[in-house]
């Protein structure tokens, strides 16, 4: 009989822990809808791949670049729209994007702090100047015509065309 109080207390703690995100979310309700405000490059309108792909999978692109540069000495990247870039985090990416004002904000929001890119790479001093700031909003799905990948299953599961993961710049 006396153990009921312990059981109920234990249950209450459990429920409190489980529902903690709700209480917290209600407290900060105003801020929640706000996605991180990113500083977009002033001088460019298009990244090396479509935005949707870059948001979800930029790390895969970076890993592929690293491998190709370090192992295969492949430095040229031909983007989906035919533009040619250098496979270079410091020059190409950080040439447009600012680490603190771009990378870190999303990373902090998504809980992916400090990937080990930064153990080697630095933000160049003359970083991109921030001109336009925009809240990151969900992008509309790319038009079906944009699909390039033959891999339809993957593209259906991910909801957007499987991106031009660069295997080889050619």
């Amino acid at each position, binding site marked *: 009989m006396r153990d009921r109080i312990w059981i109920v207390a234990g249950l209450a703690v459990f429920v409190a822990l489980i529902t903690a995100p709700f209480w917290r979310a209600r407290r900060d309700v105003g801020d929640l809808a706000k996605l991180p405000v990113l500083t977009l490059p002033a001088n460019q309108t298009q990244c090396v791949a479509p935005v949707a792909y870059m948001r979800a999978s930029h790390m895969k692109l970076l890993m592929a670049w690293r491998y190709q540069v370090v192992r295969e000495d492949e430095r040229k990247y031909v983007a989906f729209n035919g533009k040619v870039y250098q496979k270079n985090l410091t020059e190409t990416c950080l040439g447009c994007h600012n680490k603190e004002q771009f990378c870190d904000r999303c990373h902090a929001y*998504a809980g992916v702090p400090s990937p080990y890119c930064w153990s080697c790479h630095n933000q160049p001093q003359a970083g991109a100047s921030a001109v336009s700031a925009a809240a990151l909003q969900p992008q509309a799905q790319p038009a079906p015509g944009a699909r390039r990948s033959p891999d339809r299953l993957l593209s259906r599961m991910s909801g957007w065309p499987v991106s031009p993961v660069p295997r080889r710049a050619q």
Partner: protein
Amino acid sequence: MSALYSLLAVLALVAAGLEGGRTGAGRDALTLIVPYAAFTIFLAGFCVRVLRWAWAPVPFHIPTTCGQQKSLPWIRQAKVDNPSSKWGVLARMAAEILLFRSLFRNNRARMAEKRLILGESKFLWLGALAFHWALLLILLRHLRLFIQPVPAWVNGLERLDGFLQIGAPQLYISDVILLAALAYLLYRRFRDPAVRYISLFTDYFALFLLLAIAVSGVLMRYFVRVDVLSVKQFALSLAAFRPVDLRALSPLFLAHLLLVCTLAAYLPFSKLMHMGGIFLSPTRNLANDSRRKRHINPWNYPVKKHTYAEWEEEFHDKLVAAGIPLEDEDAGKAHTD
């Protein structure tokens, strides 16, 4: 048969999740109705189940003792396996819940030819322990999606989990362990004829469901990337009861979500309630002190007895003939023969 049915049931859920988001109504159902309903059922069902156990009394003091009792001061007591105090019980329960002590007892590692032999039964302990710890770690890691800003300890867990620094996104060891352990538990259920004999629909269903959840999660993280920002925004908005329709949520994510919701809603009706039940098990959570302290049975009731008076009356002549003292006789005289 039950294995097949449960596999089909899980596959149907996967299909519903993948395809359900194609229409607006379907997306609403999957992103709004299902999560709230599942969470409500989980919370209410879990509490009802636990309270129902709590309201059934423990009439008798029945710990299973797995070591030496506390008796004479010079005999060494097994304080954890046969606890006599609250602290002992706490230690026993902690060992049971955190390390699966009893399953480990199964585990008698043997040295043979200078090699440690782990038999079949040890893998059950290892598989179960690996699975549960990996699952816990993964659940805690998911908090990064529900809390803003992300607490440092959650980031710490992630770093710990990804310490191998393989690839990007970093490979979580817990993901690998979870999949391996689940695969083993499923394999064991199929392969061991004794376990297969007793396995029910619910046993396979739980395994397939967890496996489907794990696989969809792994796919999303490593292979078919989803937009984590949208997912987090969605999760936070759910938590704040201000759901937003997010078109960027991918079918795979919706499937993952549906599977998780199914698990949550199914849990209170299933054997998975062992997660709460283990705390209440009267063979484990009682101290072995039933001779030192009286345990009270709330429904103790008087029973029909064959009293001494009735007994003496029935055997009166024989008692007298045998010279056994009777109740009203002088006690001192009784011992003469």
